């Protein structure tokens, strides 16, 4: 029994990574109907920036703000920088291509992804980088039979706070209503007086910022980062957002968590080597029987 519970917690931890990255894909897709292939690389870039701050700036920052302060500074620096990078990429790579339609934008997005990935490689080098090991005290909590590390609790707490606040913004505020309206029908929304550019600004700053924070959390959790990891996480996160119903923000969160839990349960009970196959099979089955994803009802494809 305790194996299931532990795997559930591991699954939720990984799932929250997927969910946070998936949000970036889903928001951009909802507003622009564009698969932002560069999003995985936003995540990687955030992770590397956090790494730089924590490794090279740690002595300075931690002496002023303490350990937790250092983490917060790293998160903030990464999030703010990536928000800026997101905006620049939108301006330079996507905006000039929008009028031409969706498929040229896919190539442009892939181009942006190659560009970012290789920028990271040129700056930080092609080898793996390791996050500092003693960032978070290595404390285990024992709840009955279940082990949880402090880091896991912290990651879960933080991702649920981030997701919760995004959920609140999108579902409860007026601006959130504008985002949802834009996702449903961009032309009508702009006719109703919604400033589409503001919505685009929002999704292209918040998505990459969330991705960057996830990048730091992944760095702390696995301690090893590489310049190509954006592809893998991006692929999984994109899968998660489709699973939940692409363009749908609660769907992306749910999809990410489900994907993480399925992956961990698959690894524990079926086979660790086949866990990704298992994940993709579930995805295909869901799409065959429910082509719009779990929560994607409202965004059925127009005929």
């Amino acid at each position, binding site marked *: 029994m305790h194996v299931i519970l532990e795997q559930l917690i591991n699954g939720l931890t990984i799932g929250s990574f997927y969910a946070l990255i998936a949000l970036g894909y889903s928001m951009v*897709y909802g507003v622009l*109907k564009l*698969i932002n*292939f560069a999003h995985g690389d936003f995540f990687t870039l955030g992770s590397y920036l956090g790494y730089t701050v924590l490794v090279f700036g740690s002595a300075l920052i931690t002496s002023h703000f303490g350990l937790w302060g250092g983490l917060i500074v790293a998160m903030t620096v990464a999030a703010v920088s990536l928000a800026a990078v997101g905006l620049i990429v939108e301006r*330079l*790579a996507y905006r*000039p*291509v*929008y*009028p*031409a*339609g*969706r*498929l*040229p*934008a*896919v*190539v*442009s997005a*892939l*181009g*942006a*992804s*190659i*560009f*970012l*990935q*290789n*920028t990271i*490689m*040129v700056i930080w080098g092609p080898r793996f980088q390791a996050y500092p090991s003693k960032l978070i005290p290595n404390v285990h909590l024992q709840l009955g039979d279940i082990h949880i590390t402090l880091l896991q609790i912290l990651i879960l707490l933080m991702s649920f706070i981030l997701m919760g606040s995004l959920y609140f913004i999108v579902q409860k505020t007026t601006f959130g209503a504008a985002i949802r309206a834009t996702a449903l*029908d*961009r*032309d009508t929304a702009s006719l109703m007086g919604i400033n589409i550019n503001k919505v685009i600004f929002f999704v292209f700053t918040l998505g990459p910022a969330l991705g960057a924070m996830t990048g730091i959390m992944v760095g702390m959790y696995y301690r090893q980062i590489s310049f190509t990891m954006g*592809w893998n996480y991006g*692929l999984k996160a*994109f*899968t998660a957002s*489709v699973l939940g119903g*692409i363009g749908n923000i609660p769907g992306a969160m749910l999809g990410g968590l489900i994907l993480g839990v399925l992956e961990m349960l698959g690894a524990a009970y079926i086979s660790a*080597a*086949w866990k*990704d*196959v298992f994940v*993709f*099979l579930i*995805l*295909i089955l869901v*799409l*065959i029987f429910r*082509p*719009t994803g779990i929560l994607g009802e409202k965004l059925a*494809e*127009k*005929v």
Partner: protein
Amino acid sequence: MESIKPSGIKSIATSQRAQILIVIGAFMAYPFFASDYFIDIAFFFGIYALLGLSLNIVLGEVGLFDLGHAGFYAIGAYTTAILNTKFGIPILVLLPISALAAALFAYIVCSPVIHLQGDYLLIVTLGMGEIVRLALINNPFDLTGGPNGVFGIDFPSLGGGLFIDSSIEFYYLIWIIVALSILGLIRLQNSRIGRAWNYIREDETAASANGVDVKNYKLLAFVLGAALAGVAGNVYASKLMCVSPESFTFWESCLMFCIVLIGGMGSIPGVLIGAAFISLFPEIFRPFAMYRMLVFGSAMMLMMMFRPGGFWPRKRGAVEFRSILGAPGRDDG
């Protein structure tokens, strides 16, 4: 709709015929002026041209988003590799068998998902491509050799002790296959099937209302596209003498997608240009070393800014394309 031409080949004007002859002549003469290294680059240009042509059937002609095409390529390559190393079947005999295996695989896996639209089809094909790759890594039934792949594949034998084993011979092999495929595809573009495909691409509902069997025509596109990718896999496997899962990643599918879009959807000369860009560009910019992929990525973005319809859009489709590309809000592309 435009008038039906009896044959695409006959309708080519004389001046165009001269140009085509020059291009063919250049391709035939090229290996006599180039070193083995550059002949090999041209060989891979041929492989990418064949892969681009195969994806062009699915993506260009029918407008189906397929981001898992490397899976079909992998099935072709591994069919050749396994049957050749385990049973010693000659490579050229395996050429049609690999095509059939990839086609059969496409038929089986695409049948249940063919009703999906746009991006949902994209993610399902992406998932399938990944499943193929992961399955190859996991070495089912001890057939695929896991992450290392399969080694020791023969060169194609022509009988009588003659083997296709030098760079020049492989160059001619792949480009003869590409040329034959192009001839076949031109015929197909102007046939009833080609027109049905384009009709589905432009307006699926109208096509189905006019009695086009949408589901089966889409499946046919996948099956033919996969067969051609299987052929490419066969030649690739015998050229490299080994296959491994890392040759068939998601990245490879993305490259094929870019070949078709950079060239111009549904345009055969466009696909050749796209393949040239993808295969030659990183080689030409090799002196830039670390920065060449940076330049490559920027070139992709710039290209889409200035020629969003592709480098050589299909002429007949020029009017038709505007309807796809001019409507960014449309979901099913």
